[in-house]
């Protein structure tokens, strides 16, 4: 019994271990291939860039674990950044403006969740709708022209310094720790996974499906808004086009990290590592001066191979647990 438990645990973190291994191989390769890769300045870049992806991917991990998907996060990031900018333009304080932006993100998230849950519509379609809606709103509010120039207290969130690190990195680390706790230790996390694993069973056990689904998407909306805060603060500009394709980047990271697209299984650690891996890859390809065409090709290849690998593994795992169940039943 104990042995199988250990085996199960090892089996669960195996994909993440593999990711770390791949990441190490990449780091070694890139360090040998280019003298510009393994420097603190460059790694600071990688962490700085990855922090945005990490924060968005955390919310996405919850959504995907619950069996859904959220395509609106990139647009929501832009919209909430624009809301913060407009609030500051109208003389509101930095803190209040940030809260308004986060609320806007949460609102879109809650709307996503409500429609998906109450009307039982495919999340792909609903969030696709909100992607367009949020992007449209961001363009309308700004009139297509970026809003520029914010107080230092605001831009600190993107370009400030905390020792050798900066606020986005620390925010990402903090959020990741929080997300890991919530997903693995709290009732909300448990229900999120259950939503993806077996929604019907959860419903029959008397849990309010609607409430938890809405909460999952709300959380994702808020993390998207946090991403919007970082982008807007870093550039000192609220762009209606910010966060372009960010939804794809975060979905890719989540899936690469070992969270199942079918729901029921999610790994915050995996998401974190996958974001760093993709960050290193993107950075390394530029450091090596590899043309943009190949960059997209390689990123696509890596995501595909990871997904195929995970799928094959999960099928085998399923088969073996079935066997075991049967044997214990007998």
């Amino acid at each position: 019994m104990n042995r199988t438990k250990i085996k199960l645990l090892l089996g669960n973190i195996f994909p993440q271990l593999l990711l770390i291994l791949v990441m190490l191989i990449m780091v070694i390769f890139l360090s040998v291939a280019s003298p510009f890769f393994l420097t603190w300045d460059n790694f600071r870049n990688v962490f700085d860039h990855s922090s945005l992806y990490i924060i968005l991917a955390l919310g996405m991990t919850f959504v995907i674990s619950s069996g859904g998907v959220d395509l609106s996060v990139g647009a929501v990031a832009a919209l909430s950044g624009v809301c913060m900018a407009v609030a500051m333009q109208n003389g509101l304080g930095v803190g209040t403006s940030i809260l308004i932006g986060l609320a806007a993100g949460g609102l879109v998230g809650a709307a996503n969740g409500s429609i998906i849950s109450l009307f039982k519509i495919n999340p792909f379609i609903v969030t696709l709708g909100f992607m367009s809606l949020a992007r449209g709103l961001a363009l309308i509010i700004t009139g297509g022209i970026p809003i520029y120039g914010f107080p230092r207290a605001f831009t600190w969130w993107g370009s400030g310094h905390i020792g050798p690190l900066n606020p986005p990195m620390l925010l990402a680390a903090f959020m990741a720790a929080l997300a890991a706790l919530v997903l693995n230790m709290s009732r909300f996390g448990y229900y999120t996974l259950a939503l993806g694993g077996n929604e019907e069973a959860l419903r029959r056990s008397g849990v309010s499906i609607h409430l938890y689904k809405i909460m999952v998407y709300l959380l994702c909306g808020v993390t998207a808004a946090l991403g919007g805060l970082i982008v807007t603060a870093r550039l000192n500009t609220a762009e209606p086009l910010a966060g372009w394709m960010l939804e794809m980047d975060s979905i890719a990271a989540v899936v690469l990290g070992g969270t199942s697209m079918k729901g029921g299984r999610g790994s915050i650690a995996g998401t974190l590592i996958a974001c760093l891996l993709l960050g290193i890859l993107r950075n390394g390809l530029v450091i090596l001066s590899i043309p943009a065409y190949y960059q997209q090709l390689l990123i696509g290849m890596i995501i595909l191979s990871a997904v195929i690998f995970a799928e094959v593994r999960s099928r085998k795992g399923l088969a073996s647990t079935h066997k075991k169940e049967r044997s214990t039943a007998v």
Partner: protein
Amino acid sequence: MKEKMKRMLAFMLLFSLVAFAAGCGSPASPPASGEKTGTGAAEEVKEDDDEVEKTAAGPAMNSKAQEIEQVLMDQLAPLPEFNTGEKIGVLIITLANPFWVAMKEGYEKAGAELGIEVAVMAAPTEGDTKSQLETLDAMVARDYAAIVASPIEPFNLVPGVVRANKKGIKVINLGPPISKEALKEAGGWLDGRITVDYEEQGAMAAEYIVEKLGPAGGKVAIIQGIPGAGQSEGRTAGAKKVFEAAENVEIVSIQPGNWDRNTAYNIASNILQAHPDIRAIFCCNDVMALAAADALEAAGKREGVIIFGVDFISEAHEAIKEGKLDGSIAYSIRVYSKAALILALKTVQGHAIPDEVFSPLALVSKENVAEFEGWE
């Protein structure tokens, strides 16, 4: 168990493949850049006839290009030392647009001609502002003496430029502007800027259209690029001013085509639906103008409508010759990219350069397209 090992091995193999591919493409050597990646549009640019032009007085067919090159070179004098092998990084917008593909080749050719090392990088798509900044940051981590950058939006590259400034890398801004104001606030600066006058481009096209419409005037429409993008706003503003000042000319629609062929096609068909009597469409680039021409042709309404683009990509050149497109506004990509590299070299070698250099423009239409044979 064995099975597991095998799969793991396969996975590893894939990564070594990735690494291998990375190794292949790694040096920014000119041969790697010469690959036939272009979307056909770039092919004409590849004809290697600039050696000829450079030495002799050149054949008469290149007179326009030469004229423009001379104007610019006079502006740039005194010239820096060449063949010094400096490494210059170039960040363009995207290789998904034939214009930027042609620019990339222009840079690489000019780099070879000037005897310097040039590496051209790009964002994956025209709208991906954050990836472009990330690419710039990674470039700054390398050992370039100067970087020539063309931003997607005025603000998206600002933090990266500041980092380059701090590291002592010279930054030249080509084309769409990087906001100087935002840079100043962030503690950075530009070492030079070369651009074309976008408003002038729009105005030139609109003036041609107004003249062709004659005193009767008529309804005109503008298809913009991405709202907020410098070229798009400038060209639109220039065209709008001229159209508004003209008698009997009415702007019935200004729509964002996002530089995208498909979007522009749909907009053009919609405009035609709403205004069957439309007389002219000005598009903020050639890709969209070609799409608009296709849309009108598909509806059987191409006759009697003037369609004008900007950039004079080679596909547009063909289209103007065939009469599919009425015209475009050209600036020589070859001269433009070469000038940017010369400016970069000058700053690296400590020459003073003017704050802003404009690349000269030329209007191409059915009437004069023959003079543009061999234009790059």
